[in-house]
């Protein structure tokens, strides 16, 4: 997020696109609701009539995978009606003309044809966004989990820069991240192309610095493989061994049967987790780790706030904290990796990571710190890009609409989208074992529009089989107008409804994110 969570309630205009904020990020949802109560305009763009959409002044019920068209359409109105922030565009951005020429085609009427959103609504929302004193854009996986995920984000950034709605309070481009420490895992280099603080492995200088700090041999200059590529590598035999810590790709990755199939081909698989997950079952060795309650450490949240977690209880059984296990393995492989505590590790992170340089446990004891925090006396940075973008001028990246990798056809006539439910989390490893959440929300269902259901002769509560080109699951149907005609939806929380057997592994060429939000399926009633 470019701006802090606490900023949202103060925005005059909120565009929530591809985020069911009140369900997936309930506490951020509170900020959105507060803004609405205070009279701010909330616009939600989502193919589903989600809970947050019900709160909105306008719900732009776009067709799945047409976000770029919508965002370009908004930019088109703002430029053609001369509503953009000329001062901001002139002083802080470049390549405006390129944007202007690309979006020129996306007139409201043209956009309506792609998105299904009425031209008048596009005009109205564009004027509201451009006219707002402070406007913020919130998005999540509804934007990113497409083959054009990165371009979707570019289109959002274009809009924000066009109206100067970035680099100041209550505005910005704000991805709401879905996992407690997905921000932090990226920050500290658990990515194939960067080291900590996004220092590229391709940079000679960065590699030299880390080789010196770590006292190790050369770090390869070529970026490594992403999750999906690793699984493909395993399938093809190039990847022979894997070490998986706290992940469950067998349920979480697209085309899940294929993921399991690939992992089975490995010569050696070690999985480190707190439960015997579907992935751990395939392992040669399983190492028991501790939960967040049994260790010290830090998480970095979606607004870049680094916060402490504190050990509350002793490790369960003979389990050990992940950091200790990694150290022990490194030592067993002949590399001395020894730390007294996570605080000690944070000292090392700070020493090699400019954006974390000023962060220490002593400071975190007094409260979280938002990076960049370059020095020990730096207060942290709640708002990014104030006065200047990290690259200098903000660059407009004009992007064109592309259809999803898979579009409905005669054989697979419906679009399947996936997401989260309020009471559950990810692959259910934790939330199915709480003694409460799974009791309350015990059974998953498929949202289907009554019109589609009628055609298929499906009643509410019927069991149906949902099938894509990759796989099939059985699930109970719930008739609802949350989904429009032609769209079905369910979550990926329930192992018994392993919906990722169906999803499409087609990936965004830049970020390698899979297109979870759109694939083509057919639904049949089970006799």
């Amino acid at each position: 997020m470019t701006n802090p969570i606490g900023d949202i309630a103060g925005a005059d205009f909120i565009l929530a696109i591809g985020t069911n904020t009140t369900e997936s990020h309930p506490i951020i949802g509170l900020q959105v609701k507060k803004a609405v109560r205070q009279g701010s305009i909330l616009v939600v763009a989502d193919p589903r009539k989600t809970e947050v959409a019900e709160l909105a002044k306008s719900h732009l019920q776009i067709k799945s995978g047409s976000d770029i068209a919508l965002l370009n359409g908004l930019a088109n109105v703002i430029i053609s009606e001369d509503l953009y922030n000329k001062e901001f565009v002139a002083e802080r951005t470049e390549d405006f003309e390129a944007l202007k020429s690309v979006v020129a085609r996306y007139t409201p009427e043209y956009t309506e044809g792609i998105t299904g959103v009425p031209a008048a609504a596009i005009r109205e929302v564009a004027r509201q966004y451009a006219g707002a004193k402070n406007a913020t854009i919130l998005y999540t996986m509804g934007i990113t989990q497409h083959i054009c995920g990165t371009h979707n984000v570019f289109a959002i950034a274009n809009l924000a820069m066009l109206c100067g709605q970035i680099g100041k309070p209550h505005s910005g481009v704000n991805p709401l991240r879905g996992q407690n420490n997905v921000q932090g895992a990226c920050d500290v280099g658990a990515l194939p192309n960067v080291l900590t603080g996004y220092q590229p492995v391709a940079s000679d200088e960065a590699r030299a610095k880390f080789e010196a700090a770590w006292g190790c041999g050369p770090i390869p200059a070529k970026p490594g493989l992403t999750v999906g590529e690793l699984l493909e590598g395993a399938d093809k035999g190039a990847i022979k061994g894997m070490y998986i810590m706290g992940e469950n790709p067998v349920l979480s990755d697209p085309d899940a049967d294929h993921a399991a199939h690939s992992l089975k081909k490995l010569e050696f698989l070690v999985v480190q987790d707190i439960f015997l997950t579907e992935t751990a079952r395939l392992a040669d060795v399983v190492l028991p780790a501790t939960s967040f309650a049994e260790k010290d450490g830090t998480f970095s949240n979606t607004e870049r706030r680094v916060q402490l977690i504190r050990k509350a209880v002793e490790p369960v059984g003979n389990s050990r904290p992940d950091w200790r296990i990694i150290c022990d393995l490194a030592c067993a492989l002949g590399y001395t990796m020894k730390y007294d505590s996570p605080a000690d590790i944070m000292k090392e992170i700070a020493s090699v990571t400019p954006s974390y340089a000023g962060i220490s446990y002593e400071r975190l004891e007094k409260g979280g710190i938002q990076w960049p925090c370059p020095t020990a006396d730096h207060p942290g940075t709640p708002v990014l890009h104030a006065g200047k973008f990290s690259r200098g001028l903000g660059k407009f990246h004009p992007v064109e609409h592309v259809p999803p990798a898979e579009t409905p056809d005669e054989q697979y006539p419906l679009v399947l989208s996936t997401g989260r439910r309020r009471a559950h989390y990810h692959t259910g490893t934790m939330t199915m074992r709480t003694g409460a959440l799974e009791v309350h929300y015990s059974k998953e269902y498929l949202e289907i529009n009554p019109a589609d259901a009628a055609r298929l002769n499906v009643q509410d509560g019927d069991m149906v089989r949902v099938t894509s080109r990759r796989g099939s699951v059985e699930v109970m149907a719930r008739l609802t107008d949350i989904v429009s005609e032609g769209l079905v939806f369910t979550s990926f929380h329930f192992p018994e409804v392993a919906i990722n057997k169906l999803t499409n592994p087609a990936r965004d060429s830049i970020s390698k994110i899979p297109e979870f939000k759109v694939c083509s399926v057919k639904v049949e009633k089970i006799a």
Partner: protein
Amino acid sequence: MADVTLLINGLQVTVPQGSTILDAARQLGVFIPTLCHDPELTSVGSCRMCVVDVKGARSLVISCATAAAEGMVVETESPAVMEARKTIIELLLANHPMDCLTCGKNGDCRLQDYAYMYGVKDGGVFQGAVHQYPLEENNPFITRDMNKCILCGKCIRACAEIQGNNVVDFTYRGFNTKVAPAMDTALDESSCVFCGNCVAVCPTGALQEKALRAKARSWEVKKVNTTCPYCGTGCSFDLNVKDGKVVGVTSCDGDVNGRALCIKGRFGFGFIHHQDRLTTPLIKKNGQFVEAGWDEALSLVAEKLGSLRDNSGPDSIGILSSARCTNEENYLLSKFARAVIGTNNIDHCARL
């Protein structure tokens, strides 16, 4: 903004115009009891516990909703104030179950605190009708005992003003007034999302965290402040620990979330001590997992990864780190991939 100066219990205090007498007293460190007041919620001034004596006022005034004025002279514990508070407590106790013995909120109850503070042992002279509502405990999260409700309305305001859902409100009239969802249904038949933010503000035992309050009394738990392990919002809360086990979650004042939490954050802690937790390393032998010691498991992993690295090359190994683990652990695994194995083949589920 202009300031006003007033006298509270003979002590002079200056506060910004618009401050309440209660704010001014708190600034001075003078304690005034409150039941319905909450700094995060709108003031309704309904419970009257916070009455004070203001010189020249027609009657005792409620300090939570009376603005401090220039030259005001306030007494917070005058005989009239003490008598009024005692009577309020007696009236509340006249229709309150005397079951602190096993009440989950025993030790963390404002009504009990004030009864002790003002020496009120029971309803005393007031004898009358007593509610006999059935206990509502048919959902796994919140136990509602409307017999213990003092109608302060904080839950109603928390639902409306923190959660923004307006699930509960006052229903019926007079003695029959109660807090309920629309049509007086149970919570699990209402639009309640079980965030539990009403429970966090309830001053008595009317709303309780079901699992926590059945397992531990307030004084038996150690609270450990930490960060939620679910979504990326980064809410803070207190893990409640009894006998080395996490028995519940309660709100603290978090940087991000204040006291607000969601259903998963507040009620999703049960996995920590779930019987399915892995407690020992496992090695697959002939297709079956066999329990192993750490030394055996670690040397096997080191041997296998080491031989792949040395024989098939570092890039024959792939490593998946975790968005669920700490920064420190992700950093170490990145270091492990690059410095120990010698590959950039490390990723995690950021995209999922």
